[in-house]
C-alpha cells in the first residue's frame, strides 16, 4: 500500500470535496475489510483513503416512507441484530449474519458489500432479491439505482468510490402476504464464502405465489436472477412440492457456476442450488402458513 493521506470527513459535502480534491486518486473506505486486503495485494489502488465510517449523517437505519433506509455506515452486525429487520426482512438479517466472521461483521458495512461487487456477497444477494435501491451522491447530484444494476463485471462496481458515495440502501417494506428467505451452503459456518447462496422474495395470496424474485450467487459475475425460474413461480401453490422442486430445477439450469477447487465442480454446485432453492421455497411456504 502506498497511501499518502488518511482523511476523516465529518459530513457528506466535505467528503465529496475531498474526493474532488484528490481527482480520482482518493478512495472511500468504510469497514475496509475487503479494501485493505485488495490494496495489500495490489488489486486496488489509492493514494488517499477517505474514511466515512464515523460520519454522523451516514449512521444507522430506519423505516421511512415504506422503505428501510440503511445508511452507509451500518455494519453487518448492527443490521443482523436489529429485531425489526429480523422480523420484516429475515433474508437480509440472515444474510448479514453469514458474512465473514463476528470480527468482520463488527466493522464491515452493507454498503461495502455492494460496492465490492463480488457475486458471492451474502448481503448483496439478499438486497437484490428484495428489490433494494442504492442512493448515490456525487458532485453531479443524487441518483437512485437498483442494486442489481450496479454490477459491471466480476468485482467491478458501477459505483466509482473515488468520485461517488453510496449514502444509503433502500429496501421496500414487505406488504401483507410477502415473505423473504435466505440460505447458503458452505463447508463451514464462518470464515467461508458460500459454495452457493440464494435469497427469495415472494408475493403470495391464499397460499399461491403471485410473483417472486430470486437472487443467487456465486453463479455468474454478479448476484444472478434466474428469469425462467421466476416466471415459473407465478401461480405456484406453495403446498405443491413438485412445483417447488421444478422451480429449483429450472433455477439450477439457468445458473452458470464455475468449476472451483474450493467450491466444487459446476455440476455439483448446480445440484446444490436446485436443492437450496426448493428448500428455501419450502421455508417460505412454512412462513406463509404461520402468518395465515
Amino acid at each position, binding site marked *: 500500500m502506498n497511501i499518502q493521506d*488518511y482523511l476523516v470527513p465529518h459530513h457528506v459535502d466535505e467528503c465529496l470535496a475531498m474526493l474532488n480534491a484528490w481527482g480520482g486518486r482518493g478512495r472511500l473506505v468504510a469497514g475496509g475489510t475487503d479494501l*485493505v486486503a485488495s490494496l495489500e495485494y495490489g488489486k486496488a489502488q489509492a493514494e488517499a483513503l477517505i474514511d466515512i465510517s464515523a460520519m454522523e449523517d451516514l449512521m444507522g437505519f430506519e423505516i421511512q416512507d415504506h422503505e428501510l433506509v440503511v445508511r452507509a455506515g451500518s455494519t453487518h452486525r448492527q443490521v443482523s441484530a436489529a429485531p425489526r429487520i429480523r422480523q420484516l426482512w429475515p433474508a437480509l438479517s440472515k444474510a448479514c449474519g453469514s458474512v465473514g466472521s463476528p470480527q468482520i461483521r463488527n466493522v464491515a458495512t452493507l454498503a461495502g458489500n455492494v460496492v465490492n461487487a463480488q457475486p458471492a456477497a451474502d448481503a448483496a444477494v439478499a438486497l437484490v432479491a428484495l428489490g433494494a435501491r442504492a442512493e448515490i451522491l456525487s458532485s453531479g447530484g443524487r441518483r437512485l439505482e437498483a442494486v442489481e444494476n450496479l454490477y459491471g463485471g466480476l468485482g467491478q462496481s458501477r459505483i466509482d468510490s473515488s468520485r461517488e458515495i453510496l449514502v444509503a440502501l433502500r429496501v421496500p417494506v414487505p406488504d401483507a402476504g410477502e415473505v423473504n428467505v435466505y440460505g447458503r451452503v458452505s463447508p463451514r459456518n464462518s470464515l467461508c464464502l458460500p459454495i452457493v447462496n440464494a435469497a427469495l422474495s415472494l408475493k403470495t395470496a391464499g397460499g399461491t405465489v403471485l410473483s417472486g424474485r430470486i437472487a443467487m450467487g456465486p453463479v455468474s459475475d454478479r448476484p444472478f436472477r434466474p428469469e425462467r425460474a421466476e416466471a415459473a413461480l407465478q401461480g405456484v401453490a406453495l403446498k405443491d412440492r413438485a412445483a417447488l422442486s421444478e422451480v429449483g430445477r429450472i433455477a439450477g439450469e439457468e445458473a452458470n457456476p464455475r468449476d472451483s477447487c474450493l467450491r466444487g465442480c459446476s455440476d455439483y454446485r448446480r445440484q446444490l442450488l436446485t436443492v437450496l432453492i426448493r428448500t428455501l421455497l419450502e421455508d417460505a411456504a412454512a412462513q406463509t402458513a404461520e402468518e395465515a
Partner: protein
Amino acid sequence: MMKALTFTLNGDQTRVEVDPGELLLDVLRRRLFLTGTKKGCGEGECGACTVLLDGQPVLACLLPAMKVQGRAVTTIEGLGHEQRLHPVQEAFLEKGAVQCGFCTPGMVLSSKSLLDGQPQPSEDEIKQALSGHLCRCTGYVQILEAVKDAAEKMTRAEGRKGHA
C-alpha cells in the same frame, strides 16, 4: 506524511506517529512492541490478530490504524499479568485450552468480549462468538470448556462483589 494517532491502549492514553495506510496490527507489533497480537493469515481468515475496539472484537490485520483515532483498544497485554491473570486466561490454562498458543490471545479477547456482554452464554452463543477463530492444535472442545468455566468464575466473582 506521518499522521499522529491518539487512542486509549489498554487503559492508557497513547500517541504514536503512523504511516497513513499503516495497519493496526503493524502499529501494535512494530511501533509499540506489543507482540501478543499475532499475525496469522494477514487477510482476515484466521482470527489470530483479534483485538477489542471499544469492547468489540475486530481484526487488526484488516484495520487501518487511523480507524482507532480517539477510541479504546484492548490487546492481550491489557487483560491480566503473570501475577494476576484474567479469569478467561486462568480458565484457558486450567482446561488445557492452550497448546501452541498462537490463536490464544485472539480467542481469549473474543471470549472476554462475549462474557462482558453476556455473563452466562449458552453453548451456541460461545460457538458463535468464537466462530471467527481457527485453532490447529486443541480441537476446540477444551476452548469451549474454558469459556464455560470462565463464565462461572466471573459470575462467582461478581456474586462475591455483590455480597461484600
